[in-house]
């Protein structure tokens, strides 16, 4: 037994993949080979250690099997692009103003009116500037929040609108399918049934004609065959008669010859 066979047998024994007969024989052999038995016991210890490994609870399977719901990716891209455009407009200080009956679109800083000359005053205290800046910042933050909220509302509204549109399309499709079904059942089906019936009648008639034709042909053939057989039989009879006469003549001739001698 080579090394690989010996290892294979050992593994079969260790994992109970041996027939009863083989196991008994192997155990008898092990009795004579204590070193191999020792090796098997060591393997068994390894197995006991391995059995100590706990089974872990897997985290949920992340394979996406459910159909996608919610806002589609395309709409998210569109919303993102729209938000980017609005942000850019805001950053460049885009304005729409009406002036003397017309609409003015402008970018950049607004044209300031010529400042009225002011009287020189003392420098504004730092605290006042800080307060002014803080107020301004707060105002801007509020505006941003309001924009954000407005966008969220618009997104939700768009989503709702999409859902509604989708529902309408689905309903419309269902209605159209039902209409087609109804039309088919009421109009097309009777027409098809009529056609089928007509086709059936035509086929029956054709079959009958074929049968008659076949019968006639068969009758003719039969008559011809009978006549042929009759003719053959007559010929045969005549042949037999002729042969008989010839034979009789030969016999008479033979008798006469014998008697003459």
């Amino acid at each position: 037994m080579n090394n690989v066979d010996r290892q294979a047998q050992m593994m079969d024994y260790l994992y109970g993949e041996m027939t009863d007969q083989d196991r008994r024989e192997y155990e008898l052999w092990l009795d004579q080979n204590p070193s191999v038995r020792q090796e098997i016991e060591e393997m068994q210890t390894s197995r006991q250690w391995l059995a100590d490994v706990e089974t872990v609870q897997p985290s949920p399977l992340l394979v996406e099997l459910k159909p996608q719901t919610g806002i589609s990716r395309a709409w998210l891209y569109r919303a993102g692009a729209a938000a980017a455009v609005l942000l850019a407009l805001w950053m460049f200080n885009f304005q729409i103003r009406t002036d003397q009956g017309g609409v003015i679109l402008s970018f950049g800083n607004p044209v300031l009116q010529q400042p009225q000359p002011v009287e020189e005053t003392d420098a504004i205290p730092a605290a006042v500037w800080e307060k002014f800046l803080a107020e301004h910042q707060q105002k801007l933050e509020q505006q941003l929040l309001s924009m954000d909220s407005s966008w969220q509302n618009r997104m939700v509204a768009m989503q709702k609108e999409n859902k509604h549109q989708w529902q309408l399309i689905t309903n419309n499709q269902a209605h159209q399918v039902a209409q087609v079904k109804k039309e088919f059942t009421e109009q097309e089906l009777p027409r098809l049934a009529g056609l089928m019936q007509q086709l059936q009648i035509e086929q029956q008639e054709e079959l009958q004609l074929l049968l008659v034709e076949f019968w006639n042909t068969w009758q003719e053939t039969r008559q011809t065959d009978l006549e042929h057989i009759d003719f053959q039989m007559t010929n045969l009879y005549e042949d037999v008669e002729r042969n008989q006469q010839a034979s009789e003549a030969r016999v008479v001739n033979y008798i006469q010859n014998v008697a003459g001698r």
Partner: protein
Amino acid sequence: METPDHKLIRQAQSGNRSALNQLFGQWYPRVYNMAFRYFHDEDLAADVSQQTFVAIQKSLPQLRDPQAFKSWLFRTAINCCHTLARRRHRHQASMEVISLQPKRDQPVTPYQELDRKERSRIVLAALQEIPEEQREVIVMKEYEGLKFREIAEILQLSENTVKSRLYYGLKAMRKLLEDCRLHKDLLYE
């Protein structure tokens, strides 16, 4: 005769999403645990499970014989393990072996306090130390309880090669765990 499992596979093949979910739910813990024992890493186990089931979902309609599902699933999982292991070895120069360093200078007594979790951790760490081809056979045999014939089919090897790898794997495990002084007397007090 068609078993309920085979019926489930057939339904999943025909596009029944609920059957597919049920089928995956049934096999996912086994694949996950196999990968976890292979890598001793929950994130990698999750990656392997994910990749395996994505591959299975993609190719399920092409499976002709539902009886071959189990072998096919494990073959896919083990291939994913190999791929991830190769990628990991490329990026990681050395494995984390802190827990497996032989502690010859320490007294034996601390090991008596090892609880089941700790023993489990050590054994799994030891598994990471043996060669990949021995580890995968041990995982499939010890934890998945597959027959030698099935493992041979999955790994596309001869049965004798599988047995030989298992033999050397068990020997290597014993050597490693003995180096850690994880004696059975201490383990099974």
